[in-house]
């Protein structure tokens, strides 16, 4: 009976195979064709940024082909990188992002450990709450937060509005919930035997965390760090609301408020600034793409 089925399957499969492989070849060609079209759509703005950043103001306002650079120049880069104001924005962004990443990790890693391994009263509610907090957009909270910090300033005399460090209090509300959430996922995937063995050997909870969980869940930790960094680097609404003096601004807000002066758009410099502002996340992404994507997909697939 088995021979019969093999005999039957043999010839039909063969003919089908030929047509399938021809189908596949065509499918492949179409796939590449559409991928190229989508890649053009997705990459046009960044490439146009680069093209414009290499042009002089005269060439930008000339009626030539905008997609080509006839007289490439680095003037825009030199102008921005020697401008104290621009370097100040860069510095503010860098320091805010680095602090926020550290704060986020210090808060979310222990919390994720506690929530994934040590049950306590209300821990399941808190786990769900963390995820819900992640879903609350910043556009819902910026007005009450602004008013809160104004009131705090009035009461205590500590002026936090229009200081870059106010962002250190606010950005963690965006980064901590997500980082805690994905770290819970990563920690939960570590086999229980590992930490049980450590506890039996006399390790404290803190040692279990630092000696076992952090090294084992390092990929997750890197993904969370990248996420915290990109979020705090890219944040636009909060700095726009909370800071106004030019020496307190971070990159995105600084570029938009200082390089656009009234109706005069110095597009060469704006595009250069935008490109430099996009560079740190892009560089991190280029080197740590797999971690970046792991963090991106972990949000919905883990937990």
């Amino acid at each position, binding site marked *: 009976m088995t021979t019969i089925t093999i005999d039957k399957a043999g010839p039909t499969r063969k003919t089908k195979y030929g047509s399938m492989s021809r189908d596949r070849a065509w499918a492949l060609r179409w796939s590449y064709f559409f991928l190229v079209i989508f890649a053009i759509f997705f990459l046009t703005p960044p490439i146009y940024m680069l093209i414009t950043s290499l042009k002089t103001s005269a060439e930008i306002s000339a009626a030539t082909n905008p997609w080509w650079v006839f007289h490439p120049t680095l003037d825009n880069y030199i102008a921005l990188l020697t401008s104290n104001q621009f370097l100040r924005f860069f510095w503010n962004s860098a320091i805010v992002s680095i602090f926020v990443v550290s704060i986020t990790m210090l808060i979310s890693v222990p919390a994720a450990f506690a929530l994934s391994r040590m049950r306590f009263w209300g821990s399941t509610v*808190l786990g769900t709450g963390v995820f819900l907090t992640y879903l609350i*957009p910043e556009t819902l909270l910026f007005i009450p937060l*602004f008013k809160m910090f104004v009131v705090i300033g009035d009461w205590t005399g500590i002026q936090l509005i229009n200081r870059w460090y106010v962002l250190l209090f606010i950005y963690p509300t965006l980064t901590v919930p997500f980082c805690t959430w994905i770290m819970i996922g990563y920690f939960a995937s570590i086999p229980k035997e590992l930490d049980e063995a450590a506890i039996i050997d006399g390790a404290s909870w803190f040692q279990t965390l630092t000696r076992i969980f952090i090294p084992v869940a390092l990929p997750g930790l890197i993904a969370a760090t990248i996420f915290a960094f990109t979020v705090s680097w890219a944040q636009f609404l909060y700095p726009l609301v909370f800071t106004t003096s030019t020496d307190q601004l971070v990159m995105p807000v600084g570029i938009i408020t200082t390089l656009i002066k009234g109706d005069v758009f110095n597009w060469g410099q704006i595009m250069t600034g935008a490109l430099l502002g996009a560079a740190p996340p892009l560089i991190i992404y280029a080197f740590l793409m797999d971690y970046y994507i792991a963090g991106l997909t972990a949000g919905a697939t883990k937990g």
Partner: protein
Amino acid sequence: MADVALQPSSTAAARTAQKRSGLRNVLGRKSTIAFLMALPLILLIATLVIYPAFYAVHLATLNKSMARFVGTGNFEFLFKRETFWLVVKQSCIFAITAVIFKAVIGFIVAHFVHNIPAKGQRKWRGMLLVPWVIPPAMSTLAWLWLFDPSYSAFNYTLSFFGIGPIPWTGDPYWARFSVILVNIWVGAPFFMIMYLAALKSVPDQLYEAAAIDGANWWQRIWYVTLPMMRNIIAITTLFSLIVTFANFDIVRILTAGGPLDHTHIFATWAFRVGIEGSDIPLGASVSLFMVPILAVAAIFILRDISKRGNEA
């Protein structure tokens, strides 16, 4: 007999009670440590998320100088304003259109990436995710420049096809189109990456079985791929709905709500009214209108995620 029976049972009970108190002690210590570890998180969420959320409700009931309680006065005022209904309409159009297109484009691109040999997939995936990596504020600037009224590179290119200069951000309908287009551009790669991950998790055997049963390309997608990806599609769409509905950066930079408020959505209008117009209570009321839609989406996400957890 009852007495006899009682005695051993009471000692046993005492022993288990002792045992339990010892156990509870350990548990208590462990849970205390756990609580302390989670304390910074709890404090952060309580003071900077939950408290402001309720504070927004409180603010929404005050008058402009925040000295007098006006109850629902702000809401009544909003209901009477034409701009408010315009904002409601635009927010819905903006979010729904953008999410649908993001989902469809993401799905198509994910399929194409999945189709090509595994060796090249990494490269394409890396390239196609770039819009998501660039800070939206920065990439929107590039779009603003592409849409520029006098030097628009798009209009330059289109002029070769005989299509007249398009007022990308000047005309209400084109401005809405542009805002949605930029949003699709930013968000589609996220869908692509999520769907790609989901596509990879569909076992090959299912496709083989479908092919043997004579399913064509469309049937394979409809009866195998989509049911297997249903959960991821739901979660990603709902999540994107929240993010898109609450979007601020793109509209703010591209049109700042103009022309004539025809691209304002809740977040940008709340900013205009609350921060720029320094009517904080009214701004808070505007942003509170996002809550119902966000809450519904959040409930569905939670349901899907817990379902996913049970499946695994």
